[in-house]
């Protein structure tokens, strides 16, 4: 494997990993075959062609020692392939990867365990595969078992473990082994809540201790929380590289566009079906006279809703819900707060919800419903999306009201 060099000679001391001009293609046969018959059939049919898929195109970047480096991108953007090239599992078609030190990967949720071996034996076998000596594994064994909380199970065969326990052990091996660079692929969904909490704590600690970590994730929250550098990969090229906030924003904006297209299509179908005498025409988030889907934290805004009644609707109620990215209702309100219930006369109406913005940062969508008294006439989900930009502090908090602090 002459393309992937493991020399530390050419790398400066402070660089942990350097990827230079890496490209990777996959051959996708038009008819995939693993058998002689298939191969012969394809040959007879003249079906020997394949499509060349360019997964990575001339990717170059550098990770410094002590970096907590996030890699984000939608499914199929090439980030997992890149991770496998970094970990020397795949060989790039061109370009090179240089690594300074021992690299420990945690890819596809596991390090590959043998179900017939006990937990202890698996840890030692895996350690050997990662390139550790028996003494080195002896040294970190207790740490691994402690972190995985599997002390009572280590002499059991792995096939008797639950899947959660297996992943926990694999993850513990990866993070507690004394490698120089840790490569993690989509891991924060590992284990139960308590274990996830533990992993989070570990990441905070790792960040503090300046351990070199490469993290591939779909969670912008994690990127913002843990990483000090990040990059966005789109269609095999680096679309954004830099501070985690910028990268996370770029990722979210990109997704907002994508989602909007899908949702609009859905709504049209739904609108045709639903709406008994009342139809939603438009929803907009407005700041002043400008529509915006990207709001700053604590920036008050109006939800401007236009609907059309084909008849008079007595005791008309129009309600909105703002749903956050965890599916929680962040705000539920309607014109009922005005007390007396109005009649929506036949024709178009505009309803303006002026909202004091105490929402936490994140993505939100709007659900709407309309009723005449107790009769539900219209109910639609996700008619609109918007996002609140990241706050500088405390972005895990559920709300973000204005707070004044005084020390006396």
């Amino acid at each position, binding site marked *: 494997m002459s393309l992937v060099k493991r020399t530390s000679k050419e790398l400066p001391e402070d660089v942990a990993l350097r990827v230079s001009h890496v490209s990777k293609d996959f051959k996708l046969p038009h008819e995939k075959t693993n*058998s002689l018959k298939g191969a012969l059939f394809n040959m007879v049919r003249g079906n020997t062609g394949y499509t060349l898929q360019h997964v990575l195109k001339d990717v170059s970047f550098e990770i410094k020692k002590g970096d907590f480096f996030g890699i984000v991108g939608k499914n199929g953007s090439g980030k997992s392939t890149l991770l496998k090239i970094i970990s020397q599992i795949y060989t790039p078609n061109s370009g090179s990867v240089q690594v300074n030190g021992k690299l420990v990967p945690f890819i596809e949720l596991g390090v*590959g365990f043998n179900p*017939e071996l006990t937990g202890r*034996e698996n840890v030692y076998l895996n350690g*050997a595969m990662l390139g550790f000596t028996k003494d080195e594994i002896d040294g970190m064994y207790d740490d691994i078992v402690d972190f995985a909380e599997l002390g009572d199970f280590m002499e059991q065969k792995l096939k008797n473990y639950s899947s959660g326990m297996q992943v926990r052990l694999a993850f513990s091996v990866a993070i507690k082994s004394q490698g120089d660079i840790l490569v993690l692929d989509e891991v924060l969904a590992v284990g139960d809540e308590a274990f996830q909490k533990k992993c989070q704590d570990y990441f905070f600690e790792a960040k503090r201790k300046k351990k070199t970590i490469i993290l591939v994730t779909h969670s912008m929250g994690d990127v913002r929380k843990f990483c000090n550098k990040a990059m966005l990969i789109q269609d095999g090229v680096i679309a954004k590289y830099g501070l985690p906030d910028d990268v996370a924003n770029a990722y979210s904006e990109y997704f907002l566009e994508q989602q909007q297209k899908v949702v609009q299509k859905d709504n049209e179908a739904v609108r045709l079906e639903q709406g008994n005498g009342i139809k939603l025409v438009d929803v907009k988030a407005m700041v002043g006279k400008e529509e915006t889907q990207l709001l700053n934290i604590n920036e008050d805004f109006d939800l401007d809703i236009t609907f059309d009644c084909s008849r008079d609707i007595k005791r008309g109620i129009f309600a909105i819900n703002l749903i956050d990215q965890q599916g929680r209702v962040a705000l539920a309100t309607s014109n009922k707060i005005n007390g007396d219930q109005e009649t929506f006369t036949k024709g178009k109406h505009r309803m303006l919800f002026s909202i004091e913005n105490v929402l936490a940062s994140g993505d939100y969508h709007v659900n709407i419903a309309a009723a005449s008294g107790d009769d539900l006439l219209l109910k639609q989900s996700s008619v609109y999306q918007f996002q609140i930009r990241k706050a500088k502090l405390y972005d895990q908090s559920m709300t973000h009201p204005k707070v004044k602090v005084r020390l006396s």
Partner: protein
Amino acid sequence: MKITEIFTKKNRLLLKAMVSTDFKLRYQQSILGYLWSVLKPLMLFAIMYVVFVRFMRFGADVPHFTVALLLGIILWNFFNETTTGGMLSIVGHGDLLRKIHFSKYVIVVASSMSALINFGFNFIVVIIFALVNGVRPSWSNLLIIPIVFELYLLALGIAFFLSALYVNLRDLNPIWEVVTQAGFYATPIIYPISMISSKAGAMGPVYAKLDLLLNPVAQIVQDARHVLISPANPTLWQWESNFFIACWPVVFTLLIFIGGLKFFTAKSKFFAELV
């Protein structure tokens, strides 16, 4: 990637770990356990003995042919186990290859080592059997060591080739099964080589020589019988006066080993993607 990488400390440790794992797992949950690795060839031997030596009187003119039969069977068994086990080894470790980078050579070598350990057990049985049968030990018996080494290189070379090919071509498993079955009969195991020369008419001696020239396992089995059991088992270098032709099976073996290794090295870059 070079084959010498298996001699680095890291890979030696990994090799040891993989061989001992394999050893541990092979006969778990079986009552007789490791005894099977000796019992199986012995049972096969018993059948062959009854059918070919007792009923069909094969090798009646060769001294200690019973021992020669057992030796042939365990040598073939070793060859078969190394090539078949090696062939399946890369695909069998596909799950790991997709997750960690480690030496691919180690996988095949580890599987061959397991076969070698098995062979060791069986070989002890052969020695006991030979002594009981009245074969007199001599210093020339030690020549068995380079002969086994030659067989190991041959089998390992083929294992490298097959394991890399098997990643793309799963038909290889049944094909190789048939090939080894044919090879078993094309090798002087159940019959002495002298049977080809004496029973195949005027062309007999030519066929026998061709077998020894083209089938490296045949030459190895004959040589092993010659040095270990009785000089009455003729070898190629007795039949062939031309030094270079007599050396051909060894050269052939080396070519197969190097060819298999090169093929494996070239293909191994893409195992993780294809497996």
